């Protein structure tokens, strides 16, 4: 096939060579087949199933929009778990601030930067199941590390973290920040290393304070990374499952249950698969909405190029 290529010009500029396209289709076939069979088709099927009552064992029965009507108007668990999930979303900016603060501190060229970076990153490679078991023990009301420390600081009756409805969400959010801060810190560190030094130095010569330099030079320069961390953080928080399922199963009084936990229980414990499909589409729509809002808002604060 290459013999026909004119010597003077590279073969490539003549466009697709004949045999090459069939090789190319063979090369891309597996992921494309995967996309069709495990992506596109299930997506269409999911839309249909969300309009049915379906328990896997018997064929789906058409119920129209009833699942959606129930979801939005009649199911108190949806309202409760959606609210809980929104509360977990509050952890996203807190976590981002933590990661950014750590990255800014480490970026000063501190002694021991490498081992510290290693340590901060460590929780993000660990499984959430194992970390949840560890933190379940850390939060143990009578023998946990946290309450032991609080008692030695003079707190006579520290909270029973995972057993009280008003403490369980903050406790899980704090653990979530602990588990993910390092990964986002690495992203921020990479971004900080790309901040143009001559701009920082020029600002310093002009007498800009540290805060002004951060506000007007550093923050705009790293804003694409901040945006990425925000978007992925929100998407992750909306699908929070492992941590809650292992640590509390949603309790006490369903105060820690996330929407994703309720979806799993609806589909795979009560076999309301049609309802679970409708819940999944509502979650996808909410995720798309939040992401779209973030993209819209980003025009005001994210600097590209």
């Amino acid at each position: 096939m290459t013999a026909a290529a004119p010597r003077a010009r590279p073969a490539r500029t003549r466009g697709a060579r004949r045999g090459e396209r069939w090789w190319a289709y063979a090369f891309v076939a597996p992921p494309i087949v995967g996309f069709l069979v495990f992506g596109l088709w299930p997506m269409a099927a999911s839309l249909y199933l969300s309009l049915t009552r379906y328990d896997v064992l018997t064929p789906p029965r058409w119920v129209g929009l009833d699942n959606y009507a129930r979801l939005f108007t009649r199911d108190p668990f949806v309202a409760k778990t959606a609210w809980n999930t929104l509360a977990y979303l509050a952890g996203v900016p807190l976590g981002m601030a933590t990661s950014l603060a750590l990255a800014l501190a480490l970026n000063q060229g501190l002694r021991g930067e490498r081992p510290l970076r290693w340590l901060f990153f460590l929780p993000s490679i660990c499984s959430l199941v194992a970390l949840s078991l560890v933190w379940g023990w850390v939060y143990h009301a009578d023998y946990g590390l946290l309450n032991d420390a609080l008692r030695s600081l003079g707190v006579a009756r520290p909270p029973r973290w995972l057993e009280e409805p008003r403490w369980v969400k903050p406790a899980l959010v704090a653990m979530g920040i602990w588990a993910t801060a390092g990964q986002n810190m690495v992203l921020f560190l990479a971004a900080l290393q790309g901040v143009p030094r001559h701009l920082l130095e020029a600002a310093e010569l002009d007498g800009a304070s540290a805060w002004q330099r951060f506000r007007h030079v550093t923050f705009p320069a790293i804003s694409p990374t901040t945006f990425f961390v925000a978007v992925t953080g929100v998407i992750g928080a909306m699908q929070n499952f492992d941590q809650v399922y292992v640590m509390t199963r949603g309790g006490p009084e369903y105060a820690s249950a996330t929407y994703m936990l309720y979806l799993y229980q609806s589909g795979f414990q009560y076999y309301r698969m049609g309802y679970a499909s409708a819940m999944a589409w509502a979650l996808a729509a909410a995720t798309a909405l939040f992401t779209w809002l973030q993209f819209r808002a980003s025009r005001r604060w994210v600097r590209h190029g």
Partner: protein
Amino acid sequence: MAERRRRRGGLAPRLAAYALVWAGALLVLAPFAFLVSTSLKAPAEVYERPLRWLPRSLTLDNYRRALTQVELWRGTLNTLCIAVPSTAGGLLASSFAGYAFAKMKFPGRDALFAALLATMMLPGVVTLVPQFAMFASIGWVDTYYPLVVPGSLGAAFAVFMMRQFFAGLPDALIEAAALDGASPLQTFTRVAFPLAKPALWTLAVFGFRGAWNDYFGPLVYLSTPSKFNVQQMIAATQNAYGGEPAVLMAASALALLPLVVLFACAERYFVEGVAGTGMKH
């Protein structure tokens, strides 16, 4: 390395930075230390308060019980049965496809690539129920196939990463091979693929981490306890050994160990993988 370190700012900000970073380090370390300390204690000492970090007498009994009674060794084998084929298949499939998208020309290339990228935006939860129904209808529930097959065809993210890598290779390299009479397959296997080692390592490390840490997938598909992966096994110990935190902590430590070792040996690939995901924007 010392000359690389750039000192910035005055003394006060530097001291504040040190304080912040070391406080953070202590907070990160404390739960891990609590984990290790508890796992090495005899039952009588586990509930002793105020806390003693160093056990009076070290015992490995909790680890022995985690391995034999919880059968973590079996969970490890099960996890490998899932992780190895899905990672290896995924690496191969995504390199072939990534190479084709980056260096070959064919009608529909850009549209196919865009469609593949669009699946990255798709929340996996939407396809959860129909996939389960599909696998149930062909008798694959409670087998490893649902956990292996989709990933081994090459996930969109992996294809994207490999495409970015191959796009960075000079065209001249590919053309030289073609001029020597190599078929596209030979060009790929002899020229492009061997150069992709760094990208492949990053993907392999990430694929292994994903498979080792996966809980939701096995939770949905596996119901026979002897087929459970590591995460399911340690999660199940909570019910059986809830009253024995030391065994629970030993089991958790064992489940964390392989990745911690891998991280210590291949930190570069973990960090590159994470930094790489941020760069696509």
